[in-house]
């Protein structure tokens, strides 16, 4: 993500988008600004309004108020031709079970804009389904259907790709391949991919920019790197007997409210993880203050993870540090 990217206009913009279903307000004045040429992680807890937003953008439902821009032009939801440059995978992929993968792509291609000649073969190759293209979709695994759904979204070589839970049903190799494919699609062009997903570690590895919504309005939008840096933490693993002194030492660095001790199932555990919410690049400082207090950490981890930040921003329970007493805590990763 670069500043140049942000300056090149917006792929998606919403202004005061509002949508209610009876008394339930799904979107409450949502303002989104999705830059071009990025993978945009669109995140929110269940019921936050992510799917409703996507449905509005794709003309499936009509917002009660607010405006939308698609690829730099105003879009009312009725101007269907604006969607010719948009590919999408909404919720679960949809296909005719009695048709083959290729036939499904053919009938999907008969709607909307006509794809170029040979495009169906290209897409099948891209999603690694060439060998199964003649098989009926009813015999496909969930992961294969998901890949075919992504293929269908790519039929028109769209400038904007909107994918709702694209990693659903994919095995680890499939998720890795998806990530590589999506990264490849945005590199070297101004194609934009909006990914809505609950698999936050995957979004962390994939996205350049994230937008987090809760209760129908935006709670954060910006470069993922900046968010992770701003919300980083350093975790140290120390002897149980050293915990009070370690907390005091780290509190001197991070502030009293910014230090937490990981709860343990067994009080007899000999060691504890302590987390100080300070930028990850201050890990050395944390190590120094612990050493100055005569405490030698048996483990030190720096970084931050999107999941913790997400939960904090959306008011969910804070993630525990690591799965077990001895497990390393989750930390941010690069792309």
């Amino acid at each position, binding site marked *: 993500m670069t500043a140049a990217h942000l300056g090149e206009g917006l792929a998606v913009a919403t202004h005061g988008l509002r949508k209610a279903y009876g008394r339930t307000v799904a979107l409450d004045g949502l303002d989104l600004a999705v830059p071009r040429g990025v993978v945009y992680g669109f995140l929110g807890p269940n019921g936050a309004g992510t799917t409703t937003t996507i*449905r509005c953008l*794709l*003309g*499936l*439902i*009509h917002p009660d108020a607010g405006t939308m821009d698609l690829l730099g032009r105003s879009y009312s939801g009725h101007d*269907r*031709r*604006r*969607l*010719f440059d*948009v590919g*999408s995978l*909404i*919720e*679960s992929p*949809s*296909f*005719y*079970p*009695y*048709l083959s993968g290729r*036939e499904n792509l*053919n*009938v*999907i*291609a*008969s*709607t*909307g*804009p*006509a794809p170029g000649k040979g495009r169906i073969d290209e897409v099948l190759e891209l999603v690694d389904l060439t060998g199964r293209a003649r098989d009926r979709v009813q015999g496909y695994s969930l992961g294969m259907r998901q890949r075919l759904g992504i293929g*269908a979204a790519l039929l*028109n070589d769209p400038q904007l790709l909107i994918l709702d839970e694209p990693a659903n049903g994919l095995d680890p190799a499939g998720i890795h391949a998806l990530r590589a494919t999506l990264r490849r699609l945005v590199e070297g062009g101004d194609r934009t991919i909006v990914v809505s997903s609950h698999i936050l570690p995957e979004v962390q590895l994939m996205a350049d920019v994230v937008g987090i919504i809760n209760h129908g309005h935006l709670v954060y939008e910006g470069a993922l790197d900046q968010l992770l840096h701003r919300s980083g933490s350093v975790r140290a693993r120390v002897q149980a007997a050293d915990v009070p002194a370690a907390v005091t030492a780290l509190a001197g660095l991070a502030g009293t409210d910014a230090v937490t001790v990981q709860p343990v199932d067994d009080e007899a555990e000999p060691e504890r993880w302590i987390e100080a919410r300070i930028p990850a690049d201050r890990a050395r400082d944390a190590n120094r203050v612990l050493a100055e207090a005569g405490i030698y950490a048996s483990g030190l981890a720096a970084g931050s993870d999107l999941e913790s930040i997400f939960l904090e921003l959306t008011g969910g329970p804070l993630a525990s540090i690591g799965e077990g007493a001895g497990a390393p805590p989750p930390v941010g990763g690069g792309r």
Partner: protein
Amino acid sequence: MRLFVGELRKLVRRPAAYVTLAIELVIVLIIYIAVAARYGSIAGTTPNQVAEKAGIRLLIEFPTAYASALAFVTGLGGLLAMAFAAAAAGADWGWGMVKVAVARGESRSRYILAKLAAVEVMLILGFAIAYGIALVAAIVAGRIAGLPATGYDDQATLQDLPGQLYRGYLGIAEQASIGFAIATLARSQLAGLGAGIAIYFAEQFATIFLPDVVKYLPFHVATAALGLSGGLTAGGGANGGSGFTPLDQPTAFLLVIAYLVGGAVVSAIFVERSEISG
């Protein structure tokens, strides 16, 4: 055209299309075989038996068999056409394909009307096959019953036949359009199927109590639009025995067209206005 061909391609590959046709053919064949067997078992010594044999001859003796086959095929075929169209429309909602088409920028009404047009074209083929098989079954049944193999080339009947076939097909198309609209409104093929069957039987039942109303309803106007003579009714008895006066043929034909177009318009308007959340 691309959209229409795509819709046609879906239906041609859809097993339900062939199952529907097979149901129609099997029932028609069973009826003809049963009628032929029954004819041979009637002694014909009492006035009632003589009348029964005369009634059966209307079905399996030519040239009246042309009209009776048409009555069978359009009566039963109308119900099956309604079910088939409902399945085609409802499945698109159930499988999320309306969502896919709209999200690709396809016109909602164009999409739904292309689908209905493809259904109606499939019904032309089904109707032609079913009518052809019914005629063959009538010939075979006539032979089994020992009736003379004459009357096939009755000029007066053959002259009327194209018009009757045309009106018979439109009756089927009308019922398909209604089934299509119901399934579209309900967004469910099951609802469309259920409603279609319910309408069919409700019409038959209501003939007894509400003859002045029933004659304006879809199955009855389709039957009246056929303009068949000799007491034949679509499905072998839509107004049989009730003693009520059906609509005159021109009026019934106009109502058939109105129902046909109405189903298409209702479907298109609904899809244009609906919020697609599934």
